[in-house]
């Protein structure tokens, strides 16, 4: 199934892109599953997603935990802790 992956701030810069549609196996249909799927690409993906303490995840604009389920068409964003205002 396909989900839309968004990256922000230093994650976006290190990967060199801000959005990608990713086809994931059904076995990867949680936030944690998607993360492992992307880390298996190695390189910057492996690096930026390995320390979940400094990576936050939102699914369809709501903050999501590792065990949150994913559905086709979901928008999944990875970003660092926020530093607004």
């Amino acid at each position: 199934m396909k989900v839309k992956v968004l990256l922000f701030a230093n994650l976006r810069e290190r990967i060199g892109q801000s959005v990608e549609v990713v086809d994931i196996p059904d076995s990867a249909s949680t936030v944690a599953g998607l993360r492992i799927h992307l880390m298996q690409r190695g390189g910057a993906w492996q690096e930026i997603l390995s320390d979940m303490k400094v990576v936050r995840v939102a699914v369809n604009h709501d903050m999501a935990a590792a065990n949150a389920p994913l559905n086709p068409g979901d928008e999944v964003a990875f970003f660092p802790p926020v530093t607004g205002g």
Partner: protein
Amino acid sequence: MKVSVQSDDFDLSTEVIDISMNTRTGAVASFVGVVRDIPMTLEHYPGMTENAIKKIVEEARTRWQVLDYAVIHRYGDLQPGDQIVLVAIASSHRADAFAACQFIMDYLKTQAPFWKKEHHPEGARWVNALEADDEAAARWKSLKQPQRLVQK
């Protein structure tokens, strides 16, 4: 009842006048954040950022009397002295106006998806989240239930 995430600048008086039309309004507390000495770029997450701010405001409205409000947060390139963020709260009572305004600012700093990149002379770097901001937001959690402060 305005939430806006925009690159354009804003005018404090205009926003405060806009939210002061209710005849029950007696107090308007407002806050403006200003860029200090380092130029910066603010990135946000279109859609989610607006939603997050609206949730913060709704949470404040369960705790204090808020007759009207304006929350504006800018994104993009900002120079020293530029306005970054505005929170203005109209209430009948000044304690409610102050508390809601400060609550929203504390949460904006920790919950709203904005990321700040500072442009130092030696190079640009993304700012790390500060513990002080988390603490400022956390102290509101110790209020076990919606409460009103001493007020007039």
